[in-house]
């Protein structure tokens, strides 16, 4: 059975380094999947392939809502369905917070200023940033910026949200506020694929957890299975390293 996000035989190399060595992953609509693993294991590369921010080899296949993620015309279609949140926020520094959220709906969906404003304000309220709407991103804390970035991605009403280590660049005291927004989002039925080091979040929110190492999917299971009774040695070693400190 093919999933809402369907990844088959995904290979990706940087020069001679094989970052992904044949990934197969099917993700159902509305599912929340967390991808964990040591750094350099290919987690980020994997989700960056889903909206083709990374090119991948021709014999690989990725489909989102049955649309092939191929270069060319259809890519815009896929990207309109797939929102992304980056480790380093990547807000547009020359636009106010509200304008950051309004830009894509106005340009891609041809929303009017009034519609875009209304939607932006609603989303900013949802992520708890209403008071900062007229400020510039540079004046916000990291946690606030990341919440704006989530609102900006949601403004396109994506069916899939990709999170690429969304809390890794944050000061510890700001991690919680971002995870809270993501938890709330997980209950809305949007498909979420989250690369994270936050094991607590993965355990609590994920429907399934994917453990990757050295460009391969080592193990997939429910959080209870992965954290409670990992089958593979590599998974066990990784978890004992990150959980016992």
């Amino acid at each position, binding site marked *: 059975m093919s999933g809402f996000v369907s990844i088959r035989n995904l290979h990706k190399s940087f020069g001679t380094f094989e970052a992904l060595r044949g990934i197969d992953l099917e993700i159902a609509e509305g599912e929340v999947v967390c991808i964990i693993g040591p750094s350099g294991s290919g987690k980020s590369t994997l989700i960056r392939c889903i*909206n083709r*921010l990374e090119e991948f080899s021709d014999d690989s296949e990725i489909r989102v809502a049955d649309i092939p993620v191929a270069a060319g015309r259809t890519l*815009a279609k896929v*990207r*309109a369905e*797939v*929102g*992304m949140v*980056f480790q*380093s*926020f*990547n*807000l*547009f*520094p*020359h636009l106010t917070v509200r304008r950051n959220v309004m*830009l*894509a709906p106005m*340009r*891609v969906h041809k929303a009017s200023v009034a519609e875009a404003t209304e939607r932006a304000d609603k989303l900013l309220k949802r992520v708890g940033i209403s008071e900062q709407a007229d400020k510039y991103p*540079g004046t916000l804390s990291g946690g606030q910026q990341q919440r704006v970035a989530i609102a*900006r*991605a949601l403004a*396109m009403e994506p069916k899939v949200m*990709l999170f690429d280590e969304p809390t890794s660049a944050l000061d510890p005291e700001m991690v919680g506020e971002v995870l809270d927004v993501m938890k709330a989002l997980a209950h809305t039925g949007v498909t979420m694929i989250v690369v994270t080091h936050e094991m607590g979040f993965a355990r609590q929110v994920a429907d399934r957890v994917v453990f990757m190492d050295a460009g391969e999917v080592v193990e997939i299971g429910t959080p209870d299975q992965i954290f409670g009774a990992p089958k593979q040695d590599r998974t066990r070693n990784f978890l004992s390293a990150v959980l016992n400190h």
Partner: protein
Amino acid sequence: MDIFETFFNVDVLLRTYPLLLKGLWVTVKLGAASIVVGLVFGLALALIRIYAKRPFRLLARIYIDIFRSIPLLVLLIIVYYALPFVGIRLSGFLSALTALSLVSAAYTAEIFRAGIEAIPKGQFEASGALGLSYRHMMADVILPQAIKIVIPPLTNNSINVIKDTALASVVAMPDLLKQATQAQALAANPSPLIGAAIIYIAFLWPLVAWVSRLERRFGGDTR
């Protein structure tokens, strides 16, 4: 003869002042036209240089390197005195405009390229991930940020273009320098040349000061 009478002869300056102003007007027109043409052509070149297909990228690069290497005076003389041999006969103004903007475009292209390449990769990725088209990405995200970076060097380049308009006197353009040398010949006194120098300085000094201020302001901008 005292130095004031030779170089700062008020009588001569007053007599030749209207000529100099006429020359200034020609200089300003030529400078402004060259700057605008150079900007438009330079931005196009920069975009080709970064984003076009390989052969076009290479051509843009060759163009930029050639026109940054050739002395402006040499180019100007080629345009004015050599092109007529192949049937292209441009007026003094058009010759000067052509030479100035060809060279200005090459420098402008490099300035724009540096500006665009200074924008963090994440800005391009975020635009792409949101589904923005290339056109919207450039117009709404990349160029507005690049402009801030390129304004000081672009202003510097514009100052250079205005200064280089003085070379147009070689092709019989009645610009500020040409008028000054003519007035000097008529009055048998070099004061008009000093007058021209003062006008150049008075005209360009504010621009130079403005660039310094911009550089300080944007230089302190960290993000």
